C-alpha cells in the first residue's frame, strides 16, 4: 500500500482548509460591504450635523427666510407630541389585536385574515397610510392637525405591536393559563393580569422598537400633520416634526437651512439610536432576570 488512506485524508484536509479560508474571506467581504453604507450614513450625519448643533437649535423657533439662526424646538416637541398621540392610538389597538390573535382567534379563519392584513399593513408604503388619513380626517376637518399626524403614525404602529404581542403571548406556556383558570378566574382576567402582565417586559421592547420606527417617518406626516413654523396652538392645528422640518429645510435653497437640516438629522438619528440602545438594555436585563430564576 504505497498511497495509503492517511495520504488521502491529509490531501483532502488541505483542500478543505483552502476552501474554508476562501469562503471565510468572501463572507467577510459581504459583511463589510453591508456595513459600509450604514457607517458612512452615520459618519456623514455626525460630521455634518454635530458642528451645526448649538443651544439655539434646541430652544429657538425657526427664523423667517433670510435671517440666520433659529432652531427646531417646536419640531422636537412636535415629534414627541406626535409619538405620544401615535402611542395612544397604536399601542392599545395593537395589543388588542395581538391578544385576539394569540388568545381568542387561534387558528380561526378570521385570525388568518387579520394576520394577513397586519402583514400587508406592515409592508404598505407609509405615504399610502398618510393619504388614507388625509381622506379620513383632514378632508372632513378641513385642516391639517397633530391628531391626523398622530393617527397616521399610530396606524403604522399597529402591525408591529400586534405581531410582537402575539408572538410573545404564544411563548407563555399553556399550563400557566390553566393554572389561572384552575383558581376560578374568568379567562379575560387570566389573560390580562397573568399572561399579559407576565410578558410586559418584552412587549414594552416591541413597543419601543415600533416607536423608533415611526419617530423618523416623514411621508405620512406631509399631508396629515403638515408643518408649523410656530408652537402649535392645539392638537387640532398643524404641528411641526423633526422629519418634516428636515425635509423642508433640506429642499430649500438656503445654506443656513441646510446646516440646520443636518443638525436635525443628527438629533433624529441620535434619538432613534438611543431608543434602540435603551430597549436592548431593558431586554437584556429581563432576559438576565429570567435566567437567574
Amino acid at each position, binding site marked *: 500500500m504505497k498511497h495509503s488512506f492517511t495520504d488521502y485524508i491529509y490531501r483532502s484536509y488541505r483542500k478543505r482548509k483552502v476552501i474554508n479560508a476562501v469562503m471565510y474571506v468572501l463572507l467577510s467581504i459581504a459583511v463589510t460591504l453591508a456595513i459600509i453604507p450604514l457607517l458612512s450614513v452615520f459618519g456623514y450625519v455626525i460630521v455634518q450635523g454635530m458642528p451645526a448643533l448649538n443651544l439655539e437649535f434646541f430652544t429657538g423657533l425657526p427664523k423667517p427666510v433670510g435671517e440666520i439662526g433659529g432652531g427646531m424646538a417646536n419640531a422636537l416637541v412636535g415629534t414627541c407630541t406626535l409619538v405620544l398621540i401615535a402611542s395612544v392610538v397604536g399601542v392599545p389597538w395593537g395589543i388588542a389585536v395581538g391578544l385576539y390573535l394569540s388568545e381568542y382567534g387561534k387558528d380561526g379563519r378570521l385570525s388568518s385574515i387579520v394576520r394577513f392584513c397586519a402583514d400587508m399593513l406592515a409592508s404598505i408604503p407609509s405615504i399610502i397610510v398618510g393619504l388614507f388619513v388625509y381622506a379620513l380626517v383632514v378632508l372632513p376637518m378641513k385642516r391639517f392637525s397633530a391628531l391626523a399626524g398622530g393617527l397616521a403614525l399610530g396606524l403604522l404602529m399597529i402591525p408591529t405591536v400586534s405581531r410582537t404581542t402575539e408572538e410573545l403571548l404564544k411563548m407563555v406556556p399553556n399550563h*400557566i393559563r*390553566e*393554572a389561572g*383558570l*384552575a*383558581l*376560578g378566574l374568568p379567562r379575560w382576567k387570566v389573560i390580562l393580569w397573568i399572561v399579559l402582565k*407576565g410578558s410586559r417586559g418584552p412587549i414594552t421592547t416591541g413597543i419601543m422598537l415600533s416607536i423608533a420606527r415611526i419617530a423618523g417617518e416623514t411621508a405620512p406626516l406631509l399631508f396629515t400633520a403638515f408643518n408649523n413654523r410656530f408652537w402649535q396652538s392645539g392638537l387640532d392645528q398643524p404641528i411641526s416634526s423633526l422629519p418634516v422640518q428636515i425635509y423642508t429645510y433640506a429642499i430649500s435653497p438656503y445654506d443656513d437651512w441646510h446646516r440646520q437640516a443636518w443638525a436635525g438629522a443628527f438629533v433624529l438619528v441620535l434619538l432613534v439610536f438611543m431608543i434602540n440602545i435603551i430597549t436592548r438594555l431593558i431586554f437584556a436585563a429581563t432576559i438576565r432576570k429570567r435566567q437567574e430564576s
Partner: protein
Amino acid sequence: MSSVLVVRKLNAWFGHTQALKEISMEFEQNSVTAIIGPSGCGKSTFIRCMNRLHEEVPEARASGEVFLEGKNIYLPEVDPVAIRRKIGMVFQKPNPFPSLSVFDNVAVGLKLAGVKRSAVLKEAVERSLILAALWDEVKDGLHSPGTSLSGGQQQRLCIARALAVEPSVLLMDEPTSALDPISTAKIEELMTELKKAVTIVIVTHNMQQAARISDKTGFFLLGELIECGDTSQIFTAPKDKHTERYITGRFG
C-alpha cells in the same frame, strides 16, 4: 363519612377519541384518593373533568354528572369559573406565575376575585403558606419572584396558591413527578396534614406513593375505572386480575 364529590357515568372525548368511559366514583370528605394506571389511561383527563378544565382544550368535551356537595356541576346553568374556586388544582410541573412575587402568586386568586383589603390578603397568604409548609422558608422573601424558588418550593407555592381561595377539593396531577426525592417526601408529608382541610384527589405514576399516602385508590385502564376501593385492599387483595398485574409491575 360523607361524599363531597360524586361522579356518575362520566364520559370524555378528545375530538372523536373517547378518553373516559362511564366512570362512576365517590370521594369522601377529608380523604386522599389516589388515581393510578398506565400512561394514557385517562387519569389526568378524569381529574380535569372534575374542575371542568378538560373542556378548555379545543375539541374536548365531556358528559355525565359530577356532584359537588350535592349539586351537579355539569348542569348547563353552572358557571365553570365558580366551580373552579371550589375545586383547586396542582399541576405536574411547578408553574408559579412568571413575574409575580411569592406573595402575589398566592394572593392573585383572591386579588383578581375582588379582595382588596391588604390585611385580609396578608392573612390569607400567611395561612396558605403555613398550610403548604412553605412559610418558614419564604417569610423573609415574600417579595422576591416566585420563579426564584427551588422546584420543590415552587410546587409547594402552587399548592399554597390553590389553597388561598379556600377550595373544598384539591386535585393534584402527578404533583411530585418533576421533583427530587426529598421534595417529594415533603409534599407527601404535607398531604396527610392537608387532608384535614381539603379532600384530595391525586393522580400518580408512583405506586409506592399511592400506597403511602392514600386512603382510597382507583385503578384506571384504557379510559375505564377497573377497580376502586380502600388502598390497603387494592394493594394487598385486588379483585381484578388487571389491577393485580399492574400493581405487581407486570405491565404499565
